[in-house]
C-alpha cells in the first residue's frame, strides 16, 4: 500500500479527512465550487493527493478525470507533495535578461535538483520557475516562502538557501 501522507511536519494528529469533509460541507458539496474546494484542500495538504481528488470527485458526483483535468490546468495546484520551503525563481522577461537562468542553475546544483525533479529528497525544498513575480524593477528576483529577494547574483541566492538550511539544522 502506497503512502501518501501529508509532509507538512505538524506533530499533532492532523485531522485531514475530517478537514476534507468539512471543506466539502462548507461549499454544500456543489460541483461548481470545485476550484475553491481544491484550493482549500491544497491549503491543508500543501498539494492535491490523488486519493483526495478521487474522494472529492465521488462526493461531488464528478468524474475523477474531470477533477484531475481542472487540477492539472492551473499552475497553482500542486499534484506532487511540496517541500517545507518553496522557492520561486522568476524567469519573466526582465529577470531572464538579467540572468535568472544562472540563478536557477546555481540553486538546482546546490539542492541536487533538475528541471524534472523539483523537490529535494528530504522534502525541505521545492524549487519552481515562475513566469513573473511582478517585481521586474528588482530583477533578477526569487522568493523563498513568499518573501521577495531582488537584484541577486547566483552566489547571493545560494547563500540565502544556505541560511535556511542552517536555521533548519538548529
Amino acid at each position, binding site marked *: 500500500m502506497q503512502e501518501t501522507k501529508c509532509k507538512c511536519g505538524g506533530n499533532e494528529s492532523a485531522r485531514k*479527512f475530517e478537514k476534507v469533509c468539512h471543506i466539502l460541507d462548507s461549499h454544500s458539496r456543489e460541483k461548481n465550487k470545485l476550484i475553491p474546494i481544491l484550493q482549500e484542500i491544497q491549503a491543508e495538504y500543501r498539494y492535491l493527493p*490523488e486519493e483526495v481528488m478521487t474522494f472529492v470527485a465521488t462526493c461531488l458526483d464528478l*468524474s475523477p478525470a474531470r477533477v484531475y483535468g481542472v487540477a492539472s490546468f492551473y499552475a497553482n495546484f500542486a499534484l506532487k507533495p511540496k517541500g517545507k520551503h518553496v522557492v520561486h525563481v522568476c524567469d519573466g522577461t526582465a529577470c531572464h535578461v538579467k540572468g535568472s537562468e544562472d540563478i536557477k542553475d546555481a540553486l538546482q546544483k546546490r539542492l541536487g535538483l533538475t528541471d524534472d525533479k523539483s523537490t529535494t529528497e528530504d522534502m525541505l525544498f521545492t524549487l519552481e520557475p515562475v513566469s513573473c513575480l511582478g517585481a521586474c524593477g528588482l530583477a533578477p528576483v526569487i522568493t523563498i516562502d513568499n518573501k521577495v529577494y531582488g537584484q541577486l547574483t547566483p552566489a547571493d541566492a545560494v547563500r540565502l538557501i544556505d541560511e535556511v538550511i542552517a536555521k533548519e539544522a538548529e
Partner: protein
Amino acid sequence: MENNEFVIVDNREILIENELNLLELIRKANIELPTFCYHSDLSVYGACRLCIVDIEGMGIVTSCSTVPTAGMKVKTNTAELRKMRKMYLELLLANHHQSCTTCLKSDSCKLQDLASRMGVNEVRFKMSEVKMKIDDSCPSIVRDPNKCILCGDCVRACHEIQGIGAIDFINRGSGTTVAPAFNKELKEVDCVYCGLCASVCPTGAITVKQEIDNVWQAINDEKKIVVAQIAPAVRVAIGELFGFDAGILTTGKMVAALKMIGFDKVFDTSFAADLTVFEETNEFLKRRESGKKLPQFTSCCPGWVKYVEQYYSDLLDNLSSCKSPQQMFGAIAKDTLPESYGIDRADLFVVSIMPCSAKKFEAKRPEFNKDGQSDVDAVITTQELGRMIKQAGIQFANILPESLDMPLGFKTGAGVIFGTSGGVSEAVLRYASEKITGIKSDSPDFVEVRGNEGIHVKTVKIGGVELKLAIVSGLKNAGKIAQQVRNGECDYDFIEVMACPGGCVSGAGQPVSSDSKARNLRKQGLYQADKTLQLHKSQDNPYVNKCYQDHLGQVNGPEAHRLLHTKYRSRKRFNDSSFSVFNNPVNEKLQVCICVGTSCYLRGSQKLMQKLIEYVRDNGLEDKVDVRATFCFENCDKGPSVKVGQIEHSKCTYEMLVAEMNKQLSKIVV
C-alpha cells in the same frame, strides 16, 4: 404558424426550420462545411474553427455555435475563409504525428480528408518533436496522443452519451492532452471499453485494438481448425467497406470471403442468440413467477455489464445470468465441435467477428476461460475483417455468396435482430408470448418495442399478462434507469440495455460513419433480414432444440447453467491506494481501513469514519490505531466495507467496528 424566415447562404435563400445552428442550416444548402468537433449528438464545442463563415455585419464566426436568424447574409467560401481554414489545418498537422501510411485510420481519417479537400500540400511549420507514450494497456482500445488534435469529441461522447467521463483534457496550453484521470492507463480506470471515443475520433488518436495477426497465425497453423462466428450487426455493415450502401445484407459474400481467407467453418452468432432467448426468457419468466430479482436486465452487452459491475454492483442480481451470445457460442463450440471434428480442444480456434470493441475485453474475462484456454480465442471487428479481406486481395463486390455451415450457422430472425436496440426484447417477447399463452402465433412481430429513442418504455399485453419493458441504449440513459431501479421508483419487468446508441449496429468496430443515417439503414437491414428468413421465433430453431436434446438437457438445467450462464462481480473503478487520516508515523499499529468509494460512501462510510476518528481520539488510541480511508474492497453491494487488521467486515456498523478494533487491540497488548 407559417414560417418563412430565410438566411442567405452564398446568395441563395435557405429556409430556417428549427435548426439549432447555422452549420446544420448550411448543410441543407448542400454545402458540407469542414469540421472536426461538430457532432449532432454532442454539445457544441467550437474548438476546431474550421466551420467558420463570414456573416455580413458580424464578421467571421464559427457556424456551429451561431444561431441562424432571419435575413442573415452568410458567405461560406471567401478567399479569406479558405486561407484561414488552410492555416488551421497546417497548424494541426504540424502538431500531428504524421505516420499516415502506417496509421489504422488512414482510410477514414478526417484530418487527411480535410487537408486534401482544403488543398494543404505542404506544412510550413516545424514539426513538434515531443513523443508521448502510447497507451495500449487494455484489450479493446489504443490511445496514441501523438495523433490527437484536441477536438474533444471523445471527451464529450464519453461524458455526454455514456455518462462516464473516463477521459478528459489534462494540463494546459501546449501541454494539453486527452487522458484518463491522473494520467493513468485506460485499464486502470473506469472505462467500459465501449469504444464510442474511437468511433467519434476524427484521426487515429483513439483506435480499436487489432487482433488480425493472431487470426492469420491460427489460419496458417495447419494443426488448427479455425471457425468463425459472425455477429448479427456485421452482416449489414461490412458491405460499406466495399462500396455497398449501409444496411445491404452481405452474409453470403462474407462467408465466401472467410472461406477464401482460410477459415474452416463459418457459423453464426445468431444461433447463440436464439439459444440466449431460450435461457434468458425462461430465467425471466421464473423470476416473474417468484417476484424476485426483478426487473431483469439483459446481459448481452459487455460494456453495460462492466458498467453495472463498477457503478451498480447492488443490482448485479438483477442482471440476467446468461452469458452473451458471443460467449454462449464459444462455450458450445469448444464443448461440442472438437469431438465432431476428432481434434483436441486446444486445436479448435474460435474467432468472433463483432461490431464491438468491448467484446475483445469480454472474451478475455477469466470467467470465460477453461484450463487456460479462452472459449473465444480472438475477436476481430467488422473493420478488421474488411482489412483481412483486402489483405487477401479478395474482390468482395464480385465474389459469389456461399452459405453458413451447420449446425451452428442456423438461426431464426429473432437471433438476427439482436444487433439493434429493441431486438433482444422483441426476440424475448416472441418466445414469451407462446410460452405464456400456449398458442402458436402467425404474426410474431412486436413492432411497438422498436424505437429510436435512447429510453423507450412500452407495456406489452400477452394473453392476460402485462409486461412493462424499458429498452435503453447509451450508458447515460442506462444509468438513469438503473438509478430508478435502485431507488425503487419504477416497476419495469424487463430492461434491455445496449451501451452504444441504437445498439450493436453502431458499435465501435463498425465502418466509420459520420451520422445516424447509416445506423438507421443498418437497423432496417436487420429487420429486413428477419423478414426474409423462414423462421422468426427462436423456439422454432430446430438445431437449437437438437442442441438441448443432444448436449444441454433442460432449458435452465444444470448443464445449460454450466455452459451458458455466468457470474458477475463488483469491480473497483480505480486502481489506487489509501491515505492516512492521522499524521503519525506508521509502525506496529493496527490498521483500520474504511472504504470511502462510491457505494460505501452512499451507505454512510464517511459518518462511520468520523465517529471512529472521534472514538480513537477520545480514548487516546492515536498511537495504537492507524485509521485509513481507502477505495474499494470490491464488495460494494455489502457496504460499508471496513478492514480491521486482516479481517474484513461488510455492512459494518459503528458498534461492530469498535468491538472488532478493541478485540484486536487487546491481542496486541497481550
